[in-house]
């Protein structure tokens, strides 16, 4: 490993973070976008390199300022964080590459430098959460990314975004505070903030009560951030009224990063050390996941606004992710991690389609897109394929994670049959809400003559790139499966 290589984990965070103030200084027409995109692509390239190293069998550790852990801050990249880094930096890069025109439409020219700076800070914060192995550091990065994403969501012209983002801000802050209280309690009892060290020392703590309390605070705090049912209420409006490109970026990764931290903490720190910790998964997370799946899908079926429909579908899909984890088996966690990746692909593509439609139509409602497939055939074809992936039809990425989830459910015994039934029912519900849109776009007559054309080429091109990735990872899911399996084995304390 060269000297440069060994600094990659920190560069992953530093590159976007330091580009952010630079972007503010640029106010030529396209320059802020170009620099932000370049930084994001650079971060993506780093993520790819890291993933390749991890797949070659290394766990990358990095001591910040050469202070050894547990005194200094340690950065660590393993299979789980590598996969998540790919998702986050990939989503940011795709959204930026696709979004120049769409963002021009939503953000006034003079505010663009600030907007792109906020974008890079959000990216930097999310990447920071993923690379760090330090509980307090996670909090810091979480705040950076959250504050930046409040700015991003409220950055568009839609004033309804303001109450939505206020709700998100209040709930997000409560979540972050809860998390901090939990971390503080653990620090009080163990004297460490390093996750691995923490897991090691909790065993020796005589009085477990503060630790249990900490576990409660941390879990609920992160569940707020991750929009786990019934703490999801900030999500639909925030996604709906954000600028289209921001939705692409955040929907594909923001909640999933919170789930990442949740899984890390619960499996890594608490599960091996707390007696009866299983209870939390079996009696809370599992039923809540099922409720998320069923309620999210049902609301999506009756939702007339397209982006809200997609947001409710996300609530349901987050349910799949937590369902896999709550089965407490390696195969279940593999399904869960894999679904994080695959759902980002599917939902990312769907929100890109929403952005395509948003370029040509003011109000994205099911009735307003009647007959639009004649005018925007490529956009709607992309929608159909991405929708199939969301449903989980074979030949798409969505099928692979459903397959793993169902296999894991079968393995979990008699209750598994009921889970399989619910998963299949919700797949059918997904058919209904996707098909309502398809039917309107393809088979209904427009009320008045639509004088619109296909979406701008860069946007359309990136949409198709993501759509084709849905197909590609439906037939060749080797890489995500390998990383997801590695992540699940790590979380369950098995050496791969």
């Amino acid at each position, binding site marked *: 490993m060269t000297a440069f290589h060994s600094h990659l984990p920190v560069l992953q965070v530093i590159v976007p973070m330091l580009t952010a103030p630079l972007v503010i200084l640029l106010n030529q027409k396209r320059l802020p976008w170009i620099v932000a995109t370049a930084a994001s692509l650079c971060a993506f390239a780093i993520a790819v390199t890291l993933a390749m190293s991890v797949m070659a069998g290394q766990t990358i550790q990095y001591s910040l300022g050469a202070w050894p852990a547990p005194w200094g801050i340690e950065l660590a990249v393993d299979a789980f964080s590598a996969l998540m880094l790919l998702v986050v930096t990939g989503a940011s890069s795709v959204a930026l590459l696709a979004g120049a025109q769409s963002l021009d439409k939503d953000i006034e020219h003079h505010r663009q430098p600030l907007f792109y700076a906020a974008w890079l800070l959000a990216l930097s914060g999310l990447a920071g959460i993923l690379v760090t192995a330090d509980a307090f550091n996670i909090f810091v990065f979480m705040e950076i990314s959250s504050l930046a994403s409040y700015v991003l969501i409220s950055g568009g012209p839609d004033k309804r975004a303001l109450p939505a983002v206020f709700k998100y801000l209040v709930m997000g802050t409560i979540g972050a505070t809860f998390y901090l209280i939990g971390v503080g309690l653990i620090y009080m009892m163990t004297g460490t903030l390093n996750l691995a060290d923490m897991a090691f020392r909790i065993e020796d703590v005589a009085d477990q009560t503060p630790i249990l309390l900490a576990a409660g605070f941390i879990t609920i705090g992160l569940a707020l951030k991750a929009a786990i049912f019934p703490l999801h209420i900030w999500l639909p409006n925030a996604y709906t009224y954000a600028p289209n490109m921001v939705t692409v970026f955040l929907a594909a990764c923001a909640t999933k990063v919170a789930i990442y931290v949740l899984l890390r903490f619960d499996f890594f720190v608490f599960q091996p050390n707390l007696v009866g910790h299983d209870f939390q998964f079996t009696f809370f997370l599992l039923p809540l996941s099922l409720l998320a799946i069923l309620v999210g899908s049902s609301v999506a079926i009756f939702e007339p606004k397209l982006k809200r429909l997609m947001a409710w579908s996300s609530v349901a899909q987050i349910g799949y992710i937590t369902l896999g984890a709550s089965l407490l088996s390696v195969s279940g966690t593999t399904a869960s991690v894999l679904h994080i990746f695959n759902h980002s692909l599917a939902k990312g593509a769907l929100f890109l389609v929403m952005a395509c439609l948003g370029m040509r139509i003011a109000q994205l409602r099911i009735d307003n897109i009647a007959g639009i497939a004649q005018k925007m055939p490529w956009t709607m074809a992309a929608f159909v394929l991405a929708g199939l992936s969301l449903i989980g039809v074979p030949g798409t990425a969505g099928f692979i994670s459903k397959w793993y989830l169902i296999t894991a459910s079968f393995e979990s015994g008699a209750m598994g049959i009921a889970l399989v039934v619910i998963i*299949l029912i919700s797949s059918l519900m997904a058919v209904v809400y996707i098909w309502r849109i398809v039917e309107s776009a393809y088979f209904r007559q427009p009320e008045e003559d639509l004088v619109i054309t296909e979406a701008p080429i860069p946007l359309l091109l990136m949409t198709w790139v993501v759509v084709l990735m849905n197909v590609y990872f439906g037939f060749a899911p080797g890489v995500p499966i390998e990383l997801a399996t590695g992540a699940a084995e790590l979380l369950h304390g098995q050496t791969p």
Partner: protein
Amino acid sequence: MTIALSFLIPIVGALLILAASRVSDNLREGVTLATAVALAINVWSLIPELMSGGRPELQLFEILPGIDFGFQIEPLGMLFAALASGLWIVNSIYSIGYMRANKENKQTRFYVFFALSITATIGIAFSANLFTLFLFYEVLTLCTYPLVSHKGDAKTIRSARIYLGVLLTTSIGLLLPAILWTYFVAGTGDFTPGGILEGNLEGPALGLLLGLFVFGIGKAAVMPVHRWLPAAMVAPTPVSALLHAVAVVKAGVFTVIKVIVYIFGVEHLFAEPSSGWLLYAAAFTVIVASIVALKQTNIKRLLAYSTVAQLSYVVMAAAILKPLAEVGASMHIVAHAFGKITLFFAAGAIYTAAKKTEVWQLKGIGRRMPWTMAAFTIGALSMIGVPPTGGFVSKWFILAGAFESDNYVAIATIIGSTVLNAAYFLPIIFAVWFSREDPEQKLDHGEAPWPMVTALSITAALTIGLFLFNAPLIALESQIVGIVK
């Protein structure tokens, strides 16, 4: 290579149709015909290898451990692919006449999705395992949706929704769990002679799994999952003819036979009492669908219910679980295909020439459309199973299989349904030829355009041809029996 070409030809064909439509309609239709002919030649060129016992295969890649995406051709799949690709030529000739004479719009979309549907059908026929089959099964459902909803008015869309709803619900809700269960207990879903479940799944669970498969394969239209088929009749007649008398519905019964023979294993299933219900479910569908058909006044709906009954014939034959009956089941796929496509072609010809859609309007029409109605008569006789038509041959084998296992339920069902078939077809045939024309009807019409008449004459000739020259087919299909034994 030949296998890969079987997919490339129709896909490239679909793209060329799209491109050619920019130039002229004649070129577009020319491309459709050329694609159909090329595909048929390509598929049929595999027959000699199959006859000599070869099993060509094409393994593409492994998707997940134990789950491959690949193709392997065995006699049953060969028969189905050869049938579908061959009839596509005839159907394309017919479509050209029908679509032009009825001035249907969006004809390019029609031909493109037709080609894609055939691609999916070939995929189902050639699949090497349950996963690949399921993939193409779903593709076929989705590709046929634009064909069913072709007209685009509110009523059509409602029917198309039933079509899609039933097929997707059953496949995702029942077939997919059945496939997952199979992979879970057997560790594989490869179609293997003799089945893969023996020693892996026993007792009542086997009967339950069979239920998930049979009702999950909604395309086989075993009651109560038959509702989509009458709903699909809103499609243009060429779609009803090739897809809802041959490709889609036969994909259903084909899958049922394939699962019984290559997943469950005939002998394993025969030894398991909990699988016995299938015969009764199929027999019930045969009788009830025939009774419902008796009451239909719309020609296409009558034919649809007749199809429901005839499909369950195939399922019932497969459920007899005796070698001769399995041959009968595969022969009936062919016999019913020839007969029913002829009947649909005739119905479409009547609609095109006379704008008539109801049974009671047909009095005396035989004198105005002698070719069409002669073909209709042959098709109807084949449905009843009267010699010299193909329907007789397959019924003979099914009956022989039923006698072999002293299966009186099956025998009684066959006799009963023959009577019912005669009861709803013979009065029509009689009225067509011997009744006086209704003077209030508009009378100044002759035959439909020549491409349609040509097509229906060919399929009528095939129906009779199957009675006379069926030896090679039976030799091919006996290979399945050879495996079964």
